């Protein structure tokens, strides 16, 4: 996804810089750019968030909406679980080459990556809890992400936004009652309580993983590569880590080079360390913001969105 | 000596690359073919049945270098109201860029579509769709027979038809019952039975190369310079099922009759391998 072309001189400058632990924007090799998160942006969605990673208000920008729908069970489908459906779209506003079918490949890649991290037990979301009545009805979580701007490191931005969106997701309450029909065999029925106040937050969100993406530049690697750095990166590796410090997914990208195993094990450890810090930062900021929101909640039409920056 | 032999071989290859048509003509003028066959000689056929475990029926067929794999997937569906006892058999020929550079990735080329259509028409004449009935008007088997070309070196229709016949003979459908209550079909893999083809088909293709020479079972390089092609299909009773002549090149009625005769002999060759 290296959109911009750099002159050999620029490339050389960046590579040497990284190898001697310096980066063009003054960061250390393991520092992130400024991250800003906003949740509850889409009133129609059950949960939504917008994440921007980048300094001075310019950076990679992703908007994620989570919409829950009730599906009726069809034969052939698993009996007692709900499902998660991911979809990522790169808007042409992000980069010129995304126009027309240009974004197809990267859409597929990101969609599959998101699915790999958030669809299944590794995400911490308990799919069994999304089942309403076995063999009858279940919840489907549609996670739709829109990439609005690309300035390097789409993957982390995407994962962070999705994580926040899921944290802010709450489902309407469902009442299930079983009644016996004339034949005397029990029939389960349900109805969805249509009350914007009466919502239950999604379960298992405290186990949601976070991702750290490394880019190999020269002999070293950096976290949260900028657009220029990605243009010279030989390979990319994304590691998703859960709060319990489990590895939830690893994916390597980049057609140019591979990783020496030594570097790899180092990366895995670094990934955990960074993830631990960031998870705590993420957590604290998020809960603070939530408290603010709660306090604001009394006054009408403050628009339920809030901003976290760190 | 071997050295010079290699040089000759190399020179020949260059000549063939530069003037493929002329290259072929040299052979044909000598009453032989570039692969050493006689004009009316077919390539050997190999059939391997039931190689693929993920398909209910399958067969791999090689005609010379041309290789196709036919796999049949069985699902259940409701029959057409007009034909309550008939199942479905959809035959598709896949010509991917893997088998030859003349095909592009993506939607099927015209050649692939025509091949699919022709095989489908032949299948309709040999296979009895009522043998796919589970419960009249309620449930029937729907067979998807996909013929994937692994290597394309001419005579694709012949290979495809033989592969389809072999795969259908290999096809084993599980014992299926319709639960009238739920309308669901349950099937028991352990009690699978052969459906059997109505009648076997034995195809044979002939080509008029360079408007002058009638050759049997042309390969890719010969098909490229063919001006007419003739497909003759017999059934196992030795009766004709299909005679299909295309291309502007002229084949006299006598020639066609001769080809039909030769096709009958080919029939036994294929029958042995099946």
């Amino acid at each position, binding site marked *: 996804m290296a959109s911009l072309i750099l002159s050999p001189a620029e490339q050389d400058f960046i590579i040497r810089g990284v190898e001697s632990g310096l980066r063009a924007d003054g960061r250390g090799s393991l520092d992130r750019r400024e991250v800003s998160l906003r949740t509850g942006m889409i009133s129609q969605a059950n949960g939504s968030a917008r994440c921007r990673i980048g300094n001075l208000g310019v950076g990679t920008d992703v908007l994620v909406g989570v919409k829950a729908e009730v599906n009726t069970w069809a*034969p*052939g489908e698993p009996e007692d679980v709900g499902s998660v459906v991911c979809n990522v779209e790169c808007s042409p506003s992000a980069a010129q080459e995304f126009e027309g079918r240009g974004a197809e490949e990267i859409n*597929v890649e990101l969609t599959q990556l998101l699915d790999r991290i958030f669809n299944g*037990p*590794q995400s911490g979301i308990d799919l069994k809890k999304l089942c309403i009545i076995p063999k009858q009805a279940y919840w489907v979580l549609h996670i739709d992400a829109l990439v609005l701007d690309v300035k390097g490191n789409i993957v982390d931005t995407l994962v962070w936004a999705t994580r926040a969106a899921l944290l802010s997701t709450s489902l309407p309450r469902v009442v299930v009652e079983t009644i016996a029909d004339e034949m005397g065999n029990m029939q389960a029925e349900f109805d969805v309580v249509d009350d914007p106040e009466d919502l239950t937050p999604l379960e298992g969100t405290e186990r949601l993983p976070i991702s750290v993406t490394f880019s190999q530049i020269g002999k070293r690697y950096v976290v949260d590569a900028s657009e220029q750095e990605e243009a010279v990166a030989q*390979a990319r590796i994304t590691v998703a880590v859960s709060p319990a410090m*489990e*590895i*939830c*997914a*690893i*994916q*390597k990208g*980049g057609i*140019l*080079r*591979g990783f*020496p*195993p030594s570097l790899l094990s180092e990366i895995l*450890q670094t990934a955990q360390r960074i993830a631990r810090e960031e998870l705590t930062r993420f957590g604290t900021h998020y809960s603070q913001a939530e408290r603010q929101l709660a306090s604001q909640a009394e006054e009408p039409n403050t628009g339920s969105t809030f901003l976290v920056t760190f | 000596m071997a050295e010079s032999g290699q040089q000759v071989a190399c020179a020949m*290859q260059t000549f*063939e690359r530069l003037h*493929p048509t002329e290259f072929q003509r040299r052979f044909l003028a000598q009453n032989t073919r*570039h692969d050493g066959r006689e004009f009316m000689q077919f390539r050997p056929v190999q059939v391997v049945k039931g190689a*693929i*475990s*993920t398909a209910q029926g399958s067969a791999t067929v090689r005609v010379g270098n041309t290789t196709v794999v036919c*796999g049949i*997937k069985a*699902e*259940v*569906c409701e029959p057409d109201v007009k034909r309550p006892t008939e199942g*479905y058999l*959809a*035959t*598709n020929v*896949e010509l*991917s860029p*893997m088998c*030859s*550079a*003349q095909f592009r*990735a993506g*939607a*099927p080329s015209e050649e692939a579509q025509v091949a*699919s*259509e022709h095989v*489908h028409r032949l299948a309709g004449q040999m296979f009895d769709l009522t043998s796919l009935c589970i419960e009249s008007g309620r449930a029937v088997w729907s*067979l*998807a027979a996909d013929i*994937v070309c*692994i*290597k*394309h070196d001419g005579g694709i229709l012949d290979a495809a038809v033989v592969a389809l016949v072999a795969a259908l003979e290999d096809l084993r459908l*599980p014992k299926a019952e319709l639960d009238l209550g739920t309308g669901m079909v*349950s*099937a*028991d893999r*352990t009690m699978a039975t052969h459906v059997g083809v109505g009648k076997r088909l034995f195809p044979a293709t002939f080509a008029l190369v360079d408007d002058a020479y009638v050759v049997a079972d042309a390969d*890719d390089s010969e098909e490229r310079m063919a001006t007419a092609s003739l497909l003759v299909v017999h059934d196992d009773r030795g009766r004709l099922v299909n005679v299909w002549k295309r291309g502007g090149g002229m084949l006299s009625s006598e020639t066609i009759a001769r080809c039909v005769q030769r096709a009958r002999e080919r029939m036994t060759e294929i029958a042995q391998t099946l």
Partner: protein
Amino acid sequence: MASNVFDRRRINGPQRSVEPLYTAKAAEPFANGRLDGRALDQVRPIFIKTGPLDAQSPSASAPSGSAYYEQGKIRVSCAIYGPRQGRQSNARMGSFDCDFKYAPFSCSWRLSHIKSSDEKEIALMLEHAIGPAIRLEAYPKASIDAFVTVIESDGKAATIAAAINCISAALADAGIELYDSVAACSMSMYGTQWVSDCSQAEENASTCSLLVSRMPSVDEITYLLQHGKTTPEMTTQAIQACSNDCTRVYAVICRYLQATLE
């Protein structure tokens, strides 16, 4: 395959068709050992053949290299075209593109003819896994295309690994300049135990799968994919074990390639 999309370029079956409910239960994997009686770290027997699709006589339509690869039930066929005229005419490096297709009958479920996003992503994976091995700078302005068709699959991760091995054999057959041939292998976790090269049934029962492809003689991991959750220790352990398997697969491929040269 609940509803079949009508495709006017193909012969269509009924609008809607479903698999019947199979009453007979599939055997429980790992109930006592592995279904096929393999050792836990044992890779299925491998069969390679290079050049099955190559032309006997020089013709433009034949691929420049090809390979047929079997690993247990898995059968993969691959053709390499190129180096040939690339798309962008002023590229400093050659481009390498993969096209990956499951034959409609190659999986235990029926696949539609239209390419799924799954297949598209696998194509990307293959490019990322093989790309590092090709000396693309040796082929400016050119493009190298690999077309892979899965004739039969048995375990998704294992099939991808097989595809990778098949391509690198085909590349060697095509005489493309490589740093080293890539060998790939997959593992799945069952309980707390890593199991090499899992079949579909085994994969379904597992909670986490890992795919590693590497260039042993350069000692570089060209591709790495973990799907599912484990502890970091388990991951590192698995990567190690998988790398070893890769080396074994690599040995098989190399032995074959050497044999073809003699």
